[in-house]
């Protein structure tokens, strides 16, 4: 009897309330009407004489308001609680997830066949949908595998835990293997023209941000110092490399009295990259210390703003000190990296001739991919090792409680400065790699937006979590790069539609949404570096992050 009553009550609660939903939707529609009225309904366009004229876009405006109204209406009427519960149940069930993955795969195949057979818009939409379903299939298949492992080897038993950690190690090996094989596989399947985009725009670009994210993770995630000017060290690394490689050391003339000091980097020729990479890193770490000193006493938001100001100062100096940096025009002709002394050139003495294979411009791209992969892995390995050293533990202690640190006799000055210096060093490595990869650098590449993107990657990934940072970099950078590829959208939204315009728009929106969804980042558990008896992950909520 009682259970029946409760059932009725829950049914009553889940029954949609149309009047309330309509009121809410009307409210949203009204707000959207006022919000979008000035900037969407009207356009301040320039005419032929470059005068401003007012144009109206009522249809577009109507679409915005209507989507706000109906979106809210659907949201209010949807049985959210039940859907949430069902979603949670599905996540636990490998069979349901597996079925979903299989269905999506079949749907993808069917749509692709339609796309092949059809012409024009329909086939483009079908192709876009098939990509969407394909991604969904992969994600649900991974989810099914995880759910299966969790149900087969529960973490509550000793053997289950051991097996889970074994699977974790195996997965890491597989991931490493994938990363190593990636450019070669891409080249094998897609050829020179087809694969260069995937290796360069996706592989190298994402890995640069993974490395920058891991480097900043030392400062933000481990030491808890929010640095909004990390791009300064990236810039210092890039400019140190470019200037030293092109001009040599400024005191060469002085040093010629001491022949052993005379190093003209230009004469290093093919070795320039390999000699200057560590030097650029060291110079960047000096700048890290230089920045670290004045901000020692600052905490939290104040520290963030001062580091932001430092980043901007460095960029403004790079713009205005034209004699040294050539200002906005930038520095071109930066020496490219070589295969340990063998340049990637056509003909005698080149990489292809040396190894007796036909010349192909992609060799350098593939080599660059491996260089940045090694640099990124070096960053990760060093971070993991440093966490176990006294200095790494001091960083994490500092993040948790600075006063307690001082009371325990930890030297907070050296602790903060080493964090800044080591974080900056990796930024410098990444910067000199960037300069060598592009062959051209200008202050445009080192705006505040870059710093914001790197901080976003670290925080969205879950500060202090290496794998989380990597996932966030793949999602945010790979996702925005993928926007360039979506030519199909042109057929849906018209010829003038340029998907690349919307990259940063969606990036900003993504930052806000992920923060609201998971304020602790995508990976919200942390595994402590020191543990008693068994390694247990702790919730990110127990870690005091970004305190100051």
């Amino acid at each position, binding site marked *: 009897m009682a259970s029946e009553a409760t059932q009725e009550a829950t049914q009553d609660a889940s029954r949609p309330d149309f009047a309330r939903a309509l009121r809410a939707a009307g409210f949203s529609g009204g707000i959207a009407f*006022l919000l979008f009225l*000035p900037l969407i309904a009207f356009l301040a366009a320039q005419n032929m004489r470059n005068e401003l004229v007012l144009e109206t876009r009522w249809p577009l405006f109507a679409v915005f308001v209507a989507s706000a109204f109906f979106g809210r209406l659907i949201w209010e009427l949807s049985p959210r609680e039940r859907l949430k519960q069902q979603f949670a149940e599905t996540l636990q069930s490998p069979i349901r997830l597996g079925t979903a993955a299989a269905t999506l795969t079949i749907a993808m195949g069917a749509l692709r066949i339609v796309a092949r057979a059809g012409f024009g818009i329909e086939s483009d939409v079908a192709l876009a949908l098939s990509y969407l379903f394909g991604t969904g299939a992969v994600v649900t298949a991974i989810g099914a595998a995880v759910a299966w492992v969790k149900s087969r080897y529960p973490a509550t038993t000793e053997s289950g835990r051991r097996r889970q950690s074994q699977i974790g190690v195996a997965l890491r090996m597989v991931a490493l293997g994938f990363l190593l094989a990636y450019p070669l596989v891409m080249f094998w399947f897609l050829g020179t023209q087809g694969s260069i985009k995937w290796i360069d725009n996706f592989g190298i670009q994402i890995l640069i941000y993974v490395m920058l994210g891991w480097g900043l993770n030392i400062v933000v995630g481990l030491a808890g110092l929010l640095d909004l000017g990390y791009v300064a060290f990236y810039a210092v690394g890039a400019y140190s490399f470019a200037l030293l490689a092109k001009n040599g050391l400024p005191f060469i003339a002085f040093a010629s009295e001491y022949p052993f000091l005379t190093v003209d980097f230009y004469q290093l020729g093919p070795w320039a990259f390999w000699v200057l990479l560590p030097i650029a890193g060291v110079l960047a770490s000096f700048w890290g210390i230089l920045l670290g000193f004045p901000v020692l006493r600052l905490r939290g938001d104040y520290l963030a703003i001062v580091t932001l100001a430092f980043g901007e100062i460095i960029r403004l100096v790079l713009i205005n000190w034209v004699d040294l940096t050539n200002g906005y025009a930038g520095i071109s002709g930066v020496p490219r990296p070589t295969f340990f002394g063998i340049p990637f050139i056509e003909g005698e003495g080149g990489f292809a001739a040396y190894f007796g294979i036909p010349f192909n411009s992609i060799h350098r791209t593939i080599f660059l991919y491996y260089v940045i992969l090694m640099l990124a892995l070096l960053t990760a390995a060093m971070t993991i090792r440093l966490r176990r050293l006294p200095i790494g533990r001091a960083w994490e202690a500092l993040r948790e409680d600075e006063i307690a640190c001082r009371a325990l006799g930890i030297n907070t000055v050296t602790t903060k400065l080493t964090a800044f210096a080591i974080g900056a060093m990796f930024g410098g490595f990444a910067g000199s790699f960037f300069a060598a990869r592009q062959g051209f650098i200008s202050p445009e590449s080192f705006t505040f937006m870059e710093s914001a993107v790197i901080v976003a990657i670290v925080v969205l990934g879950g500060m202090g979590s290496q794998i989380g940072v990597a996932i966030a970099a793949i999602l945010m950078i790979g996702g925005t790069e993928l926007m360039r590829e979506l030519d199909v959208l042109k057929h849906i939204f018209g010829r003038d539609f340029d998907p690349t315009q919307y990259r940063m728009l969606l990036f900003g929106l993504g*930052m806000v949404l992920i923060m609201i969804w998971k304020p602790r980042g995508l990976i919200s558990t942390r595994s402590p570096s020191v543990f008693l008896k068994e390694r247990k992950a702790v919730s990110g909520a127990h870690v005091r992050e970004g305190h100051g």
Partner: protein
Amino acid sequence: MEVFVQQLINGITLGSIYGLIAIGYTMVFGILGMVNFAHGDVFMVSAFIALIAFLILSSWIDGGLIALALLIVLIAAMVFTSLVNWAIERVAYRPLRGSFRLAPLISAIGMSIFLMNFVQVAQGPRNKSIPPLFSDVIVLFTVDGYDVTISYKQIVIWLVTGILLLAFWYLVSKTALGRAQRACEQDQKMAALLGINVDRTISITFVISAALAAVAGTMYLVHYGVVSFADGFTPGVKAFTAAVLGGIGSLPGAVIGGLAIGLIETFWSAYFSTDYKDVAAFSILVVVMIFLPQGLLGRPEVEKV
């Protein structure tokens, strides 16, 4: 001397714009303890709203009624920008209240990127310039053939800023709303226990700060006659510098800081080099933070265990 007076006039004009934006930073920091990173972009959005309002009006009003037009533009910009900031607070910051400290800051950075690119996509990436308004000048005095002038534009900016600051001061210090706002700044939990609607008060704080940013945006448009989607960042950081210089959380401090930054920037440009004027402003921020973290009028922060 004549250059000095001229730069003083220019500096106060620029400084009053910074001061208006700085109040927004300082109010939000005072009540929520967060740096509202998107505030500079809200300022930029307000300049665009003012631009659109101006274009709508200019097709109806010719010449004569320009003062009335300015008033309408100002009110339109204040209303719509307030709404934008209210929506931003509702969507991006309120769900994160009580979360860890960095979350709202990251959300605000995301919002800043979003607003900038939204305006770029919606209104196009090019600079928008309007024909000059109030461009007549009054010659105050002449020394050795150098005219020290003040333009009608500058007088309008001084007047509007002055009147609105007075209204704002009255609102914060004499009304129930202002008392609630100050109470929430001191202790939100206690204020809630005493029957103050904290959520509403915070929303109103965002609305007020946006309205003042809209005044700054309109004045910016009148003063420079040109605006682009990227114009929010640098004035935003400078206004934050002003808020920090004056002592963050202190309202008179924000105005004084704004004037100081405006004056330093114009004098630096006049006597040294325009190239490094932004570097000067940012360097001041760094120096102030290091030697005077509580600012000119702020209370020093006591570190408690």
